[in-house]
């Protein structure tokens, strides 16, 4: 009798979580997928009226026109003149530059931290600081630091060393810098900020992994006279591989979804501040969010594309990790 009672008691405990998950997780997943395959869709149509006509409801013809399923939304995404050259390329640059950079850097920092005794806790605390910050607020700080109008920290340093100021974020109105230059420096600042934000979490994970490694491996290497670099590559990295793979998967996913840092450094549209209406610094997620209200079907299609890319990458990552991870 006890077990029978527990049968439904468990579901009662879980009921609020399940209901909310159904409404705000499972249901949207299905609807977004359906909406992505509509040629036209506007929010005014209502959520469940998926077979309603595209442009109002007059006559039998437009009713059939309303069954307007196809790849129109995907075509809109792919034919957007900025989608490949800006939104997609920027996202890929962020992913393939910032992820390896952060993981290498945080590995070096974790190894360095693990090798010292004095001030270890102090440095650990300092390095954890960016984790608890507001990404919009600190992005604005970076925008001020790299500002050229008025000059920020970096330009002040450059000038006092006898160089010229650089228009890092494309904020100057004189238009001296070329478009390519602005894009390059802007992306560089963006990546510097993303790395700054991403370091604490990775250092923490890698350091706790390092502290779990048996000291005997290192003593054996020392007796054999192995060089420091070789020790790092042959002992530390293989033994840390579970953590590294975990970080790689999570940070690949995270940097595909970069949004707040772009909004904070530039603006909601990813334009340089100069006012040229070209999304120099747009990412895919920026494109999705900018279309949610006006063209939900296009936003859904882009979200679906992003989801597929992320799935592919995660699959690839776990396939690689199954081959190389040393458990």
């Amino acid at each position, binding site marked *: 009798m006890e077990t029978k009672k527990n049968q439904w008691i468990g579901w009662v405990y879980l009921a*609020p979580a399940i209901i909310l998950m159904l409404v705000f997780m499972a249901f949207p997943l299905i609807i977004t997928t359906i909406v992505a395959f509509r040629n036209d869709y506007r929010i005014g149509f209502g959520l469940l009226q998926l077979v309603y006509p595209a442009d109002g409801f007059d006559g039998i013809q437009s009713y059939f026109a309303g069954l307007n399923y196809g790849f129109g939304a995907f075509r809109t995404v792919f034919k957007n003149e900025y989608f490949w050259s800006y939104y997609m390329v920027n996202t890929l640059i962020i992913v393939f530059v910032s992820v390896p950079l952060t993981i290498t*850097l945080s590995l070096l920092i974790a190894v360095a931290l693990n090798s010292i005794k004095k001030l270890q806790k102090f440095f650990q605390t*300092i390095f954890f600081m960016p984790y608890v910050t507001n990404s919009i607020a600190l992005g604005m700080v970076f925008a001020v630091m790299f500002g050229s109008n008025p000059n920020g920290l970096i330009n002040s340093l450059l000038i006092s060393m006898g160089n010229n100021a650089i228009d890092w974020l494309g904020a100057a109105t004189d238009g001296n810098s070329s478009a390519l230059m602005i894009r390059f420096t802007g992306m560089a600042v963006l990546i510097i900020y993303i790395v700054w934000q991403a370091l604490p979490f990775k250092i923490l994970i890698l350091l706790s992994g390092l502290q779990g490694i048996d000291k005997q491996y290192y003593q054996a290497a020392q007796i054999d006279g192995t060089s420091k670099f070789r020790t790092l590559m042959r002992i530390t990295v293989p033994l840390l591989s579970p953590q590294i793979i975990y970080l790689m998967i999570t940070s690949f996913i995270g940097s595909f979804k970069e949004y707040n840092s772009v909004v904070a450094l530039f603006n909601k549209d990813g334009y340089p501040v100069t006012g040229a209406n070209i999304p120099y610094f747009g990412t895919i997620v920026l494109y999705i969010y900018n279309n949610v209200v006006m063209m939900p079907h296009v936003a859904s299609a882009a979200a679906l594309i992003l*989801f597929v890319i992320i799935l592919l990458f995660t699959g690839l990552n776990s396939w690689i990790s199954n081959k190389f991870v040393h458990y």
Partner: protein
Amino acid sequence: MLQLILFISLMAAIVITAAWCVASYFLVQTKDLDERELKYVQIKKVIILASIYILMGMLLVMPITYCPNFIAIIVMLCVTLILGWIAYYYVDLLHLSELNQATKRKETLKNLFIIAVAILIAAAIALILYLTKSLSALIIILALCFLGWMAYYYLGYLKVSTVEQAIKRDKAAKVLKLIVVYTFLVVIAIYVVVPFYWMILTSLKTPMELNEKIQLPYTLNPQWNNYKVAIKQANFADTLVNTIIVGVISTAGSLIITIFAAFAFARLNFKGRDALFSMFMATMMIPGEMLTVTNYITVVKILGWKDSYQALIVPFLVSVFYIYLLRQTFKQIPDELYYAAKVDGTTDLGYLFKVMLPIATPTIITILLLKMMGSWNSYMWPNLVNSDQSASKSITLPDWKKRNWQLITNSIRGSFRAEEDGGTDQYSRITSHLQMAATTFVTAPLLLVFIFLRKYLMRGVSRSGIKG
């Protein structure tokens, strides 16, 4: 006035130093060792106390009157400190006369030598800076010095042939390694800390200072008024209230749902539990962007929650990550406790609240913190579903709806656009100081959380954390 105080304190420091030296000279004349020890301790006490008073006086005076020459104060302070230090060592030096104290004396001399070298290097740097007036020359010279040092160690490394020298070589290698490691860590620490410093610094500057071509790394008259202006301009009044209400309600709600769900997954046995749990875990892979479009339609069009608190709370009440975190903690509690409680006639709920929750308190605090920080930092969703209705002229809109419905992060990004707020002259175009005052205002509570509750955060995160 201030110069006078500084001059007096400097003079006092010199007099004290001299007095110390003279006293210790007479000290040595005392033949009886015990008596000398006693006198030595007394003199030391008096002089240290006097020095501390002078230093404290200077430190108190400094912030009260803003000295036009900030660097002069620092230099004088340093000189006073160094003089005191030298005097202290000098006394020690004289005091040590026994043979067995010779080694200590030697060490003391070595320390004195190091101090002298440090002073010389500092003076050299100052001189180079003064003469060339450029940072690049200084950096090049410092790099050359470092390279020279490296070369010196490397030479020592090559020269070694005997066993004793091998030990020396190892020591040299160790020192080099330490230098490299600490330099690396310090550089990274600067990279991490400088944005915070620059934020606070910029928030205290005047537009005039910001308009300079070269920004100074300090400010002589901090503008605390910037904060007042920024808080007023950013409309924090509404958004701060919103953030607190949304943060508290969503944290409480989410905590209750999480506790019950985690309890069901960890302790109760029912059909389909494990399948359901793996389904829950699988949803962690779904990017939030997939859900935004439909959730926007659901919340705004179906439920009609535009510009309301529930639009910000309800969609995010369930977090699979928190359920997972709490379930792992609950799982660690031994089964025996549960059966013992059952025998005593405790109900499931009673067991949950009397036994499990107290044990899991640290995890619950972690969840609480992460969720609170989530509301404090959320930007995209409130920007999408809620808006600033404070300036609305709509007739159909009831009055109580005419306020800013967004959260605090939205108000820092949305305000301070020069072209809207600024006047026509060149200074009012600059809004960086107000922006930074607002960001400092938003960052300060987070830093407080960091300082006092770091332990809980780091524990939660290192247990395989996902942010937010």
